């Protein structure tokens, strides 16, 4: 028995697309690479919409790194792309194929459990050849430091491990990025919250209802007044034998409006427009949720420190290109670039330069420009100043604005299809709510179908999920309603007047005075990360293999 600290050349934390790309690229460069993933299986913790894009301009794509990827790990390619502007039962649909196809080599719908566990198998085989490998059910808890410098990682299940390179590919709720002081959990406006249902449907029925060939698929996006003024939108993607239907909202908006995420999802599921696709029957396989960073605000310009590099969601590299969400592809690019940077630095006999080189590559390859577009900095942020926002909302909603909308119908469709235009979209009500609503009111036709779908209630949704409950992983630091009450509504598995969720609000009477408090039970937690931001908590992930397990993702 030796008690020496174990050492690997590289440790990759997390095996989502970012970690998989990093590990595969490290292995290709002969770097001894250990990959640590906390789920029982890679993908068991992960949620995306999800369309994975391969951009023509990207230096790395997932199928470039994993040649059989589309064959083995994806659902249907997207061959039809439509955005629906909704006002009441009026709908105006625009084909946004141009936006979708811009810079797109291909885009496929994916389910993360299937995708990530396939990737993990590949990653294990390749990294094993370099003397490393992939381990699941290991929760990395933080950074190992020597004399204040990052030299490795600490975990719950294993002794500390040293490495020349630590890749934090641990997703949106990265504990490593926080430990390093590179990211924080402060501002709700840096995040979106995504909620999703996977709905069972026979392949043949999908082909008929969406009018697609067996090997084709559709992507539908939704915005307008169906979400009670909460800023964000909905999506529907076709998988092989299921649909992914979900919503993505700005977290600050969910918090301010005290919106119930599951009800917003239900608003989409029960809208008359959905009747044509859902028919009468509705069989929900899985309900899931996760935070999504907004790269425009959260992408770290210099995502590294000592031997640590951040890739993907951990670095905030998740681009909302108007209604199109691109996180997985950027995680892949960043992961591969970080690995390439380490290989370059090592070749120069100075592995400590990896971080600097990685940052340079992100800029040189144009990744940073996509994540933090200049147009948004100039116009978008201007639009977010509240007097400007109020004014534009008023104009769009006024007779003049409405006239403009009618006159410019064709132009609007083109605008929605312009990648440059949509990258400038400010985070205000105007693009998410006001404009789509006005468009639908002025140009739309009423939908007459009757939607008879009744989605499961929250208790059933929680009940259908699989959990291996460990110790509570979230601690309420301040349980006053002022500090943490927002979580009662914003938590996707909690709700006002619902006792079965994570957060409950309580009124406690003591000696004549009354206190408004919040209580927390982490048992049904889906580990989305929302309450790390909207409540006062000590937030960690559960131990390896514990907590929620997604079967679809």
């Amino acid at each position, binding site marked *: *028995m030796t008690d020496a600290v*174990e050492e*690997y050349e590289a440790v990759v934390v997390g095996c989502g697309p970012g970690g998989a790309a990093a590990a595969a690229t490290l292995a290709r460069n002969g770097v001894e690479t*250990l990959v*640590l993933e906390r789920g029982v299986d890679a993908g068991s913790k992960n949620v995306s919409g999800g369309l994975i894009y391969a951009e023509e301009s990207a230096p790395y794509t997932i199928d470039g790194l994993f040649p059989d990827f589309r064959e083995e790990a994806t659902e249907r390619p997207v061959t039809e792309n439509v955005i629906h502007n909704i006002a009441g039962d009026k709908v105006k649909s625009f084909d946004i194929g141009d936006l979708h196809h811009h810079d797109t080599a291909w885009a496929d719908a994916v389910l993360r459990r299937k995708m990530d566990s396939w990737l993990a198998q590949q990653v*294990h085989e390749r990294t*094993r050849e370099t003397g*490393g*490998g992939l*381990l699941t059910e*290991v929760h990395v808890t933080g950074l190992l430091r020597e004399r204040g410098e990052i030299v490795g990682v600490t975990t719950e*299940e*294993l*002794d500390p*491990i040293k490495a020349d390179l630590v890749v934090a590919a641990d997703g949106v709720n990265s504990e490593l990025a926080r430990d390093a002081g590179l990211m924080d959990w402060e501002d709700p406006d840096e995040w979106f919250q995504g909620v999703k249902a996977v709905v069972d449907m026979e392949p043949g029925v999908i082909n008929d209802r969406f009018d697609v060939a067996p090997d084709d698929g559709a992507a539908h996006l939704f915005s307008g007044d169906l979400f009670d003024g909460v800023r964000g939108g909905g999506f529907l993607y076709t998988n092989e034998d299921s649909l992914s239907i979900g919503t993505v909202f700005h977290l600050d908006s969910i918090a301010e409006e005290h919106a119930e995420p599951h009800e917003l999802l239900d608003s989409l599921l029960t809208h008359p427009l959905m009747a044509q696709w859902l028919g009468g029957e509705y069989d929900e396989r899985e309900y899931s949720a996760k935070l999504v960073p907004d790269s425009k605000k959260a992408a770290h310009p210099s995502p590294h420190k000592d031997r640590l590099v951040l890739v993907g969601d951990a670095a905030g590299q998740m681009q909302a290109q108007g209604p199109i969400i691109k996180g997985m592809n950027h995680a892949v690019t960043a992961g591969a670039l970080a690995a390439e940077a380490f290989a370059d630095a090592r070749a120069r006999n100075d592995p400590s330069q990896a971080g600097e080189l990685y940052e340079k590559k992100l800029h040189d390859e144009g990744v940073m420009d996509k994540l933090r577009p200049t147009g948004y900095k100039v116009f978008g942020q201007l639009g977010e100043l509240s007097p400007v926002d109020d004014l534009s909302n008023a104009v769009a909603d006024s007779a003049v604005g409405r006239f403009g909308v009618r006159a410019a119908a064709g132009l609007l469709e083109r605008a929605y299809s312009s990648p440059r235009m949509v990258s400038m979209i400010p985070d205000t009500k105007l693009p998410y709510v006001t404009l789509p609503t006005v468009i639908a009111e002025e140009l739309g036709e009423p939908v007459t179908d009757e939607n008879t779908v009744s989605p499961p209630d929250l208790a059933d949704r929680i009940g259908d999920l699989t959990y291996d409950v460990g110790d509570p992983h979230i601690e309420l630091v301040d349980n006053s309603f002022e500090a943490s009450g927002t979580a009662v509504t914003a938590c996707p598995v909690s709700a006002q007047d619902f006792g079965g969720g994570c957060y409950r609000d309580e009124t406690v009477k003591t000696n004549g005075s009354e206190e408004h408090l919040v209580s927390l039970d982490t048992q049904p937690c889906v580990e989305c990360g929302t309450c790390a931001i909207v409540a006062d908590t000590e937030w960690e992930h559960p131990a390896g293999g514990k907590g929620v397990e997604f079967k679809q993702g």
Partner: protein
Amino acid sequence: MHTVVMTKGVPDFREGQVSFDEDGHLERGKTPTVMNPNDKHALRAAFQTKVRNGGHVSLMSMGPPGYKEVLQEGMRDVYADDLYLLSDREMGAADTWATAMTVATGLQNLDDQPDLVFAGFKTADGETGHTGPQTCWCLDWPMITHVVSLDIDEDAGTVRAKRLVDGDISEIETVEAPMPCFIVADPEFEPTYRKASHRLNHKDLRDETQERAEEYEDYLTVWDHEDLNLDPDYIGLDGSPTIVSGVDPIPKAPSEREATIIEADDSEALVPILDELTPYAVGD
């Protein structure tokens, strides 16, 4: 490192597998034979030494030819490398003493002499817990029982174990012994793998042995009493001092409580329940 694990096939007592006749006698013919569950703990302990210290793990059993599948189970589920079955008519109907004699001779007959031999804590059917210690007695080795964790110092040639003092987890002591050594693994034994390299190794070995379990007979050696040079008078029924005079099924515990079943289809039907419960109500 060479470790050997002793195992026995037992009726699968799990719900849905086991079957009893009207008199409460076990129906062996209808009940599948599986590896004694406690022996899986022993095998896990042995496998841990292989993962951490290298070497190989053998599984040995004395029993009828049907035990081959029990040995295969040990290879498939708990990753034994090679299998030994001590089997012939002369060995049949052995008590724990004769079993121990036979197995000890089997162990001594191995080309590669073991550093550690593991037994389980009791079988699911015989339940004496004698076979392990008696085998050790035949070998004249040091023995550590009720072992819950294990570390090996190969350079020093010693094994250090944590064991339950009174058979329960309220008191644990650490003991050290020279190898070769005999270990009785407690059902509380938990292998620990705190090194990434150990876990990676575990994964490789698991995949490898699971694949091999398909062709387990290639890794199986069967020895009869002649191979072991054993005198039939000292093994099997003839070598067993135990006389089983009879076997009585334990009668079912009589049910003491009476039950009244009330079909509550409507609220009217609930009234009798209230009437029944009222006398037990406390307060007003």
